[in-house]
């Protein structure tokens, strides 16, 4: 026993090093393997607070583009409204609330990374504002990502520029759907995989979110087809999609809650059990 203590005392530095290394490696492997189990995230009180301070300075520099974006969106919504056939017809609000499956929150991105393979964003609203994991994040131009972790006042978002991100998407014209992933190369382009070969795809076609997604509503803009690759081994296309969003400069975002998500998941879980 005494020898054991002597050994520990003698090699305390090495043992401490091994212990700390194992802890950090476990954390690393966890963060790579399955996205639910990430312990260390920037959605905590300290890091969120620091990012919010930094962002309050950066925000001023982007006021102009932010305003332009808002004005453009207003114009688009106004044109939708004016071109609506019967302008006197007002949709009954009660009816909407009864059938409305989606709730939209407004939030702001306070930290954005896009230089590594697994990129995350931090937003300044959290569980106190009603944000929960697996909500969709988008802005007026298109989708941005999916909420991953929440704390009281902050939340982290898996960016579409994350090699782990997988979002259901389809081609607007033909409604063939596939999975939106990222190959980690360019911040302007993501990849749409598993599009069947019999689909007619053309450069410039618009890609939107698909109906299979229980996170995003259908028909949200993603981007346009930039390049089409055919994989000879499988019967699928891989498509480079040019994002509408400039992922390197993001400001205000909308967060979308699908109220039916739980129900759909429960139903699907039942199928698996049988």
């Amino acid at each position, binding site marked *: 026993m005494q020898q054991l203590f002597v050994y520990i005392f003698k090699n305390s530095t090495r043992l401490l090093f091994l212990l700390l290394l194992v*802890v950090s490696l476990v954390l*690393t492997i966890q963060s790579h393997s399955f996205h639910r189990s990430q312990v260390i*995230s920037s959605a905590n009180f300290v890091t969120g607070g620091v990012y919010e301070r930094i962002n309050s300075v950066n925000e001023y520099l982007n006021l102009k583009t932010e305003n332009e974006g808002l004005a453009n969106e207003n114009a688009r919504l106004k044109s939708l409204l004016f071109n609506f056939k019967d302008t006197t017809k007002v949709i009954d609000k009660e009816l909407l609330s009864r059938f409305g499956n989606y709730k939209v929150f407004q939030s702001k991105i306070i930290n954005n*990374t896009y*230089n590594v393979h697994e990129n*995350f964003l931090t937003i300044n609203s959290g569980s106190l504002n009603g944000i929960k994991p697996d909500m969709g994040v988008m802005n007026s131009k298109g989708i941005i990502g999916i909420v991953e972790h929440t704390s009281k006042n902050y939340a982290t978002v898996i960016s579409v520029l994350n090699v782990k991100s997988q979002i259901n998407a389809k081609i607007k014209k033909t409604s063939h759907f596939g999975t939106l992933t990222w190959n980690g190369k360019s911040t302007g382009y993501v990849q749409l995989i598993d599009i069947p070969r019999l689909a007619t795809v053309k450069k410039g076609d618009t890609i939107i979110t698909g109906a299979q997604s229980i996170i995003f509503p259908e028909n949200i803009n993603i981007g346009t087809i930039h390049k089409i690759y055919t994989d000879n081994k499988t019967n699928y296309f891989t498509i480079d999609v040019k994002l509408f969003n400039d992922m390197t400069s993001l400001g205000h975002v909308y967060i979308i809650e699908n109220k039916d998500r739980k129900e759909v998941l429960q139903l699907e879980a039942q199928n698996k059990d049988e």
Partner: protein
Amino acid sequence: MNSAVIVNIIRFILLILAQVAIFNKINFLGFINPYPYILFIILYPVNGNKNGLLLASFLLGITMDMFSNSGGVHAAACVTLAYLRPSFFKFSFGLSYEYQTVKINNRLTPERFSFILISVLTHHIILFLLEIFRFSFFWNILVRTVLSTIFTLALCILLIYLFKPSKKN
């Protein structure tokens, strides 16, 4: 609490803040960032407590991981660097380094330069290897390591010169 401890605590906080607020946002060519926060480990007193350095490095790394949502990547790289630091000292300054009170933040000699270079390179290789974690991105890891090392090295030397304590003697 002596002055060395206080200096190190202040350095720890300032380096993290500078890294998060400035250096993580540089994104030179879209993906190259310097990581001069490891100056904390490089500048830690040569004869300081080794276990203390290990714990402080772990804390430094895990804080960086929190800010960048990267699991334990920075922590692993920092802890390894802290553990290997004495061997790097031996390599760069010769065997009897502990007796001739080495000071890193002083005039840049080949010995000091080689020490900083090895430290930065070790840290970055581990960092990018763990961060990317896929062997299909091998060239990517290599390019990132080399370019970031150059960037960090230049910044470290620059920062050491900028904040060199004024000459007392």
